[in-house]
């Protein structure tokens, strides 16, 4: 077996050195009647070529986003990732190292995390960020729990513009922990009155911008209303590129900013692994979950980095920890950080401009088709479209024509009366040919339906 260096002779020598007759003697503590003779229903070892053929054949049963005009976002964005990103994250020293518990031989990872934290803080306009979470949805749930700890209250209010699966994750956590949660109804036009829902029991309001339907939101009024009642504002985002085009959570007075970082540096990968971004104000840092890299010096006085404030964490605090989380999303955070470094401020701004321009052109083009309404007056790179045909059926029909036209809102919100809504995204990967193909197919699909 190519991954196992020991051979039969060496195994015998080692057993003799240990002083046992055979390998079974080392498993003597397993009750005899509970030992497995052989794993049935599993194939025997395979060579590299055979495994590659088998798995590649399975991969062939999916249709990659890059093989067709692709306009689906809804929290995950198809981006062009520079080739050097994937090369660098496969450096052995990044890929095959553990959590930097021995900082003297982990300064590479630690400096990257320190740089990542600084980048996330800058992007969100917040004072301090952690070294990453599993993904946007779990970061969002952790933000709710952090707000509970800070306010000593246990009722969160979730905007109807929050990604439905983020809201589901928060609801599961709240239900399981015995906390209250208020979910405002889905809010396609960003018309909800969140302030009216805040009361003296509220720990936080969680508002996404741009929201699930693509509407950018001004959060200052919500922040003011929350703060007036002693509650916190958690600002949520699902595309990190949007932060460079829109006023930041920090600028809008958010207390905690959380979101998905996939859209910079990380592939679609059918839902994971991704990287959750988590930022807050310095005064709340000791209630923040997750790992933190901090600056210090070594015995020779040289600048160095180390995991710090670990007295918040489970391995020290056990049942009193701020979170049960043990790991972060280190390699995805690295990919995020490298891609953002390659972009730089100027490149990121241009990338955001191209995303916005492409979405505007697409919206204008689709709006010209009879029976199509673009709901959002304002948007960044994603908007909601209403058509005369049920969205789920429309998207299937478009897929059969080789076009991924967006997300039928009903897939994530089945009973919300939004059966005619499609959430459509456009990033830099779409060109004029893609838009023309989409418009043609959509017009045809709607025409056939009427006929």
């Amino acid at each position, binding site marked *: 077996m190519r*991954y196992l260096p*020991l051979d039969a002779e060496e195994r015998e020598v080692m057993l003799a050195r240990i002083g046992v007759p055979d390998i079974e003697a*080392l*498993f003597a503590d397993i*009750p005899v009647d*509970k030992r497995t003779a052989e794993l049935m229903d*599993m194939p*025997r*070892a395979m060579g590299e070529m055979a495994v590659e053929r088998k*798995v590649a054949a*399975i*991969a062939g*049963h*999916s*249709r990659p986003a890059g093989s067709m005009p692709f306009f*689906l976002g809804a929290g*995950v964005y*198809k981006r062009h990732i520079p080739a050097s990103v994937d090369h*660098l994250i*496969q450096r*052995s020293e990044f890929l*095959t*190292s553990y959590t930097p*518990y021995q900082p003297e*031989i*982990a300064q*590479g990872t630690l400096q990257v995390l*320190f740089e990542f*934290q*600084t980048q996330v803080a800058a992007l969100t306009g917040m004072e301090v960020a952690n*070294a990453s979470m599993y993904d946007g949805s779990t970061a969002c749930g952790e933000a709710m729990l952090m707000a509970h700890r800070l306010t000593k209250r246990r009722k969160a209010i979730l905007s109807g513009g929050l990604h439905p699966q983020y809201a589901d994750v928060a609801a599961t956590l709240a*239900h399981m922990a015995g906390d209250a949660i208020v979910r405002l109804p889905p809010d396609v036009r960003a018309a909800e009155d969140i302030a009216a829902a805040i009361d003296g029991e509220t720990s936080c309001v969680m508002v996404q*911008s741009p929201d699930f339907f693509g509407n*950018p939101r001004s959060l200052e009024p919500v922040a003011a209303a929350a703060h007036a009642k002693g509650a916190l504002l958690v600002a949520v985002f699902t595309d990190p590129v949007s932060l460079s085009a829109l006023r930041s959570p920090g600028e809008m007075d958010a207390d905690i900013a959380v979101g998905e970082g996939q859209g910079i540096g990380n*592939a679609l990968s059918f*839902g*994971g*692994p*991704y990287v959750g971004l988590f930022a807050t104000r310095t005064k709340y840092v000791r209630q923040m979950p997750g790992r933190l890299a*901090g600056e*210090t010096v*070594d015995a020779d006085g040289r600048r*160095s980095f180390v995991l*710090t404030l670990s007295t918040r*964490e*489970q391995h020290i605090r056990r049942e009193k*920890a701020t979170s*049960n989380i043990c*790991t972060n999303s*280190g390699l995805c955070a*690295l990919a995020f950080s490298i891609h953002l*470094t390659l*972009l*730089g*401020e*100027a490149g*990121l701004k241009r*990338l955001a401009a191209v995303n916005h321009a492409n979405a*505007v052109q697409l*919206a204008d083009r689709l709006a010209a088709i009879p029976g199509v309404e673009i709901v959002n007056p304002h948007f960044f790179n994603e908007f909601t479209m209403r058509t005369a045909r049920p969205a789920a059926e429309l998207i299937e029909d478009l897929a059969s024509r080789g076009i991924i036209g967006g997300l039928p809102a009903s897939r994530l919100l089945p009973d919300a009366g939004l059966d005619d809504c499609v959430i459509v995204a456009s990033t830099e990967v779409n060109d004029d040919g893609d838009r023309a193909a989409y418009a043609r197919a959509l017009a045809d699909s709607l025409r056939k339906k009427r006929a």
Partner: protein
Amino acid sequence: MNIQARPTRAEVEAAAALPETFTGDRALEVEEALLFEIGRPEATGVDIEEPAPFGSRLGPHGREKALDLPGLTEPEAVRHYVRLSRKNYAIDLGIYPLGSCTMKHNPRLNEKLARLPGFADVHPLQPETTAQGALEVIEALAKALMTMTGMSAVAMSPKAGAHGELCGMMAIKAAIEARGEAERRKVVLVPDSAHGTNPATAALLGFSVRAVAAGEDGVVSVEAVKNALAPDVAAIMLTNPNTCGLFERDIVGVAEAVHEAGAYFYCDGANFNAIVGKTKPGDLGVDAMHINLHKTFSTPHGGGGPGAGPVVLSKRLAPYAPVPFLKREGANLRLVEHAEGTQSFGRMTAFHGQMGMFVRALAFILSHGADGLKQASEDAVLSANYIRACLNDVMSAPFGDRVCMHEVLFDDRWLKDTGVTTLDFAKAMIDEGFHPMTVYFPLIVHGAMLIEPTESESKASLDLFIMTLRDLVFAVQAGKKERFLPAPVYAPRRRLDETRAARQPVLRWTRPSAL
């Protein structure tokens, strides 16, 4: 001279005083500035053209404020990150014997396969008809995990081990609620040797934690569990093999006692690598167990994640599994994404889990096959016991001279009155070119040193590791503190001032104020 026939530092320094360099760097040992000190906001490594003029639709929401984000061109960026990478230890550089972390070789085939467009370039919300390949991987991996564990169901979405624990304990809580006993069963039993995530997870769900002490032999006895069991107990969280590297030999009796008391058995599967193909948790009475794909099935640790923590469930807990789960309808796979109309406790994460890790784990399982997986477990256990046998005459084992599973635990009794601590010993290992073992965990063993070699080490590698540790032990015995107290001296950094980092936290770079 040493075993490499290389001049020692003392010999070199005696021969000639080392000259200073202009840069302060030493050949391949180079310092790297922070990104913020070398980057410029206008520099970029990605050529993007400004779009043609168009009417903005951002409304009043546009960002005016500068971001203050530096950029680098591609050559500068590549150099920055490659230079940083060289300050890290890695499995690819040598043995990484962190106990309970299972740092084994990461096959590169798995990296290649995870990047196939049919997995990496598939959106989680694409129409299911266009994502069948991705769904087939989830189905195939789920089936393999159930076969290896002998369990009835598996929840694939948890993102990491601790997330898997949370998932398993949520399923238990949901089952208890369904029985109408939520008000009564408020306690979770956790052995004092458990990983910190166990009590943290129980507390997150509103349970209080009752500690169960391990016996003098390092394992939990049926009696200790029976004494702690009461009508208020919801579950026990037991790691097996446990964090002392021992198989919980009373596990069947423990499971029976727990079930008799109407409680559930959560098994922390962090150490599953020792027993794959040797025994099945399902046969031992386990109700739920997470599997760290990044340990047992070798998805790369990546400097601290991402991991993946699927949870296998017994028949009794299966109905409460989180959404999404897979359903086969004829030739097609479909995702059940909504809990309504099912007994599912809800959703733990957006989308469907760590697809990139699923592909790698499946490739690992296919490559090994049933025979290779069993061999891997045996080699991991054999290697740990070999290290034990070669060191137990000079170091001290807390639970006596007995076989271990895939990791071997020593305490610091043998260091008593030497002036050298477990930490000093670990740091001296760094100077020898090794990553240290896990130290000071489990907490119940004083000055713990937990060594897990995994199945990836050759005999030559194990022998060098053993010889080195023996040499260090003899140095301790000979009173050569200079090898330990200042260590490491050959690493990119000497010991860090961790107190300063915690007392005056500097958690981001800030622009130095103008003079």
